[in-house]
């Protein structure tokens, strides 16, 4: 894909120079770039999904290397790869189902062709999924070799008349599905704030006292939504040195009429005994449940644990990472 190179290098440069900041913007732009890559990709005749996945993988490696700290890049790339796998599996399952239907109709006119086992679409789909995963005990014990089954299906597809036109149709369909799914992903990234804010009323009751550290857009939208629904609460915002973004958040909250008090980071332990809930935004969520958050969050979490105060993390799904011990 030579025509994609300038776009990719452009984005890599932006990531390296930190021109794109914030996991939301990064995730969105990564997803859009990968969608363009998919649409520009020339699909081969065989093993289309694997080739597409390899192409995305190669692009993804460049992007991740540009800014290793921004985990949203890796998360989005992995989700796109997952989309490709899922679309391929469901696509193959549909294709095989279609083939077994035609095979049955063939059988009606030609009863000699019963050496080909007619496999149900669901069984084949699960076998295809297992083939794409690492070899496990379950896959080793399966006695139906998937590749031969698939090659039988594809060869039978080649044998049948009037099926040559279907190949390009299948190619375009896979691409189309993947692009549509990536579009869904982009929409999911965009609407994450709204979806999280809708749940605000369930968690914030009347006369609530909330503590937060630094500034997170998700937390801000969350609190705005609760204020819209006429919940009365007050917020203690810890400054979050050395960036002091707590000041900006306090100003934004006050503009909406929320009672806000700005405290220094050292006063968190002192104030937390009177706090009902701690709500924070984070940089990334790890696979083992840990979070990567602005400096000082560990102190807040320990203090909340000591005082049995619920510690709530609000984050969009683009922040969920597959690493356990990264960084």
């Amino acid at each position, binding site marked *: 894909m030579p025509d994609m190179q300038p776009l990719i290098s452009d984005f890599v440069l932006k990531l390296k120079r930190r021109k794109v900041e914030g996991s939301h913007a990064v995730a969105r732009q990564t997803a859009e770039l990968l969608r363009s890559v998919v649409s520009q990709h020339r699909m081969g005749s065989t093993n289309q999904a694997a080739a597409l996945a390899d192409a995305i993988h190669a692009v993804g490696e460049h992007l991740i290397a540009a800014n290793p700290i921004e985990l949203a890049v890796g998360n989005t790339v992995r989700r796109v790869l997952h989309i490709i796998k899922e679309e391929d599996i469901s696509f193959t399952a549909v294709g095989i189902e279609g083939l077994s239907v035609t095979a049955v109709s063939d059988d009606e006119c030609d009863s000699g062709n019963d050496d080909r086992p007619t496999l149900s679409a669901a069984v084949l789909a699960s076998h295809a999924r297992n083939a794409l995963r690492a070899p496990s005990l379950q896959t080793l014990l399966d006695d139906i070799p998937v590749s031969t089954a698939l090659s039988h299906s594809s060869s039978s597809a080649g044998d049948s008349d009037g099926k040559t036109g279907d190949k390009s149709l299948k190619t375009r369909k896979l691409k189309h599905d993947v692009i549509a799914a990536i579009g869904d992903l982009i929409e999911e990234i965009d609407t994450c704030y709204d979806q999280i804010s809708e749940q605000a009323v369930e968690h914030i009751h009347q006369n609530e006292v909330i503590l937060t550290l630094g500034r997170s857009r998700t937390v801000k939208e969350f609190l705005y939504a609760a204020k819209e629904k006429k919940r009365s609460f007050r917020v*203690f915002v810890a*400054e*979050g*040195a*050395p960036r*002091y973004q707590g*000041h*900006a958040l*306090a*100003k934004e909250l*006050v503009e909406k*009429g*929320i*009672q*806000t*008090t*700005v*405290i*220094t*980071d*050292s*006063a*968190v*332990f*002192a*104030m937390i*005994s*009177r706090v009902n809930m701690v709500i924070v935004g984070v940089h990334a969520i790890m696979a083992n449940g840990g979070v990567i958050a602005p*400096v*000082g969050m*560990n*102190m807040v979490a*320990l*203090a909340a644990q*000591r005082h049995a105060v619920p510690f709530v993390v609000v984050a969009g799904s683009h922040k969920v990472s597959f690493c356990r011990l990264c960084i």
Partner: protein
Amino acid sequence: MQFDDVHRVEKAKKRAIVNQSEARNRVELFRHLPQYVHGTQLPDLESKFFQLEPIHPSVYKVGLQYLSGEVSGGNGRCIAMLLAFREAIKDYSTPPNKTLSRDLTAKVSSYVSFFIECRPLSISMGNAIRFLKNRIAKLPITLSESEAKASLQSDIDRFINEKIVVADQVIVSHAITKVRDDDVLLTYGSSSVVEMILEHAHELGRKFRVIVVDSRPKLEGQGLLRRLVAKGINCTYTHINAVSYIMHEVTRVFLGASSILSNGTVYSRVGTASVAMVAHAFGIPVLVCCEAYKFHERVQLDSICANELGDPDVISKIPGRADLGDLKNWADNENLQLLNLTYDATPSDYVSMIITDYGMVRYS
């Protein structure tokens, strides 16, 4: 005094020498504590210097030093106050038809109210005042005025010497046994006793390095850092937010205290509780160094029932970061409050040991 009771506050204002401007945007949770905007009082008080008869000039001077923040720290404030009282007693003469003990006690009380208006008393100062009033009350009636005055002055000298100066030396000698070679010691803010321990250990030739943790708005750690580096001690300086990041390197934590309460709670500079909590989470021993005269018999369960509120304007301004002006006109908005706490209460289970002049006490 109950500051949330309007009548009492009005009465106190009429008697006040220091002009107490109305605090704007008060935090509801702390309505029971005095909240002053200190910045406007200093020039006002300076202008009244030659007009105030009842206040002795040395007492006045120390009051101004408290207001401006020149004298800070439990020991420093207590010593300054006692020396001012010593001067005042030296220049005191009993008015006719009055007994020395009662009149002097009343005078001392008036000086104390002046100090309170400048800055709320620390617990060390409260204990010292109680000691002095006790000595005045116990004066035998047979003593002449000059003898009584001399006795009181020597009492004050003895208090400063025994309870503060020698006590510090004893604490240092105890704590030195806890500093070994290749130790990484962490301290928070600026405590006079901890500074003495570190300097003494360095003089004895122990090899260790120090991590100074600091926090806004006072940034007291910077002064300590300068003095330690000048002595040649290897130091690292960081902000309190990074304490969980560097704690894995630390072997021991030394903290100072403003007071130790009777349930074992350590009442100290705000942020001490957080540092002790993180150290406890990492399993690192926390040693609190405190002179015995600072102990108090009251019990405090959290940092809100009794505390001192500092100037909220200091929070909105960040020195060196002129671009961060989000909170410039914070007082205009009734929904926004800034809170500047001075002290906090560290629960006793975070502390491994207290080192006092009476010995080392382990917390079970």
